[in-house]
């Protein structure tokens, strides 16, 4: 699976043959052509390219961090660092018996509040519908927001979560990663908070380096001693 990784740019032929084109590739005759700058992944019957650049495009079931930008009497609008705004209906927060007359939306969420949300529905005809009615979702009361490039989120999580576990264990911080590249870090000790933020920024800057987990570990430990 991993043995055929290759760097590609738009127009490069990824492979030829009977493969199913998945993300960021198009089929032209029997050639599979990349449409973005990225790293190829060839599976038994399908091909995809992991992008290295670009905006966040919402996907159903993604966890995102959003910032409330405005509200109407029925819904909030969230900035989810994408080309579309997240749409959060008031019923999702107040429950089924929500009444536009009786309930004041600002009593729950104000402009500027950070929210952990999940993309409930998204298609090309409408703005993404987000929900906060689930465990671990909802308004974020404490923590610092760190913005990284959305294409580097998988690197921050690491293989089976190794990278993020390393950072969390070394700093005792609680880190919430939104797929849209926004990360909330909260930690009881100020040093741990600073270190965790530094580590996240380091991953963002050095995402292409091979043994990054070790480097991050080293950085976290060296700071702890001094």
């Amino acid at each position, binding site marked *: 699976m991993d043995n055929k990784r*290759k*760097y590609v*740019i*738009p*127009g*490069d*032929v990824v492979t030829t043959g009977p493969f199913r084109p998945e993300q*960021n590739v*198009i089929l*032209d005759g029997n050639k599979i*052509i990349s*449409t*973005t*700058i990225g790293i190829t992944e060839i599976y038994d019957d399908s091909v995809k390219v992991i*992008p*290295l*650049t*670009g*905006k966040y*495009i919402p996907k159903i079931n993604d966890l995102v961090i959003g910032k409330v930008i405005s509200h109407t009497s029925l819904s909030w609008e969230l900035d989810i660092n994408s*080309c*579309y705004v997240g749409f959060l209906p008031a019923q999702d927060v107040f429950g089924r018996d929500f009444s536009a007359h009786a309930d004041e939306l600002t009593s729950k969420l104000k402009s500027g509040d950070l929210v952990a949300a999940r993309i409930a529905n998204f298609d*090309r*005809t409408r703005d993404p519908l987000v929900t906060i009615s689930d465990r671990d979702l909802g308004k974020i009361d404490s923590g610092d927001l760190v913005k990284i490039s959305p*294409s580097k989120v998988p690197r921050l999580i690491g293989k089976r979560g190794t990278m993020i576990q390393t950072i969390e264990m070394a700093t005792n911080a609680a880190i919430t990663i939104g797929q849209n590249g926004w990360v909330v870090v909260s930690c009881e000790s100020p040093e741990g908070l600073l270190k965790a933020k530094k580590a996240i920024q380091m991953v963002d800057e050095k995402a*292409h380096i091979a043994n990054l987990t070790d480097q991050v570990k080293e950085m976290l430990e060296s700071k702890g001693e001094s």
Partner: protein
Amino acid sequence: MGGREATMVLLDENGIRCDGRKVDEPRRIMIKAGGLKNADGSAYIEFGENKILVGVFGPRDVHPKHMSNTDTGILRVRYHMEPFSVGERKNPAPSRREIEISKVIKEALEPAVMLEKFPRTAVDVYIEVLQADGGTRCAALSAASVALADAGIPMRDMVAAIAAGKVADTVILDVNNEEDQAGQADMPIGYMPSVEKITLLQLDGVLTPEEYKKCVEVGVNGCKIVYDLQKKALNDKYFGSGED
């Protein structure tokens, strides 16, 4: 045009052009991807004496809203020449020529960019010509495709562009300012090498059908040279040099 241009030798008996190039030799080309922090994608090109900077934003919200399209994203291109880009100060207001070139570049990029993936959004391409020396539209188009790729906008292929032309009854590659002024024909060509499609073809001048075919052939081959440099620019930025 004064008497000097009329007597200038555009092509000598050894097949050497007025700036010392061979007939099928492009000018020195340098492309750099990235460089602007605040734009989503950017590129800088030096194409002979041309110096052009391109910044790309998007996909992003469309303003004014009525311009948006529910079926697809839209592409907006602004080609602009700085007042200091030419010998005599150029009025910075968009001229007839700049509006036309903006449209031409937009239409040359549209077949490459897969905007249908982002309905109701806009991709903005801002092209600033810092220094002009003939063939800016080709250089700008080449740089704009690199900037779009840098911004992560899905593309079928990058568009490479170069001009072919005719001076002293000979078909040449990469027309410079002098050859454009005093030559017989100028044909800018935009080409997607991987999918083998031409996206821009203009012609100013008179060519016989045979010369026309020769010009297209020479131009397409020139585009492949530009294409390799575009790929190199992106490889350098994202993967370091030498890797692939």
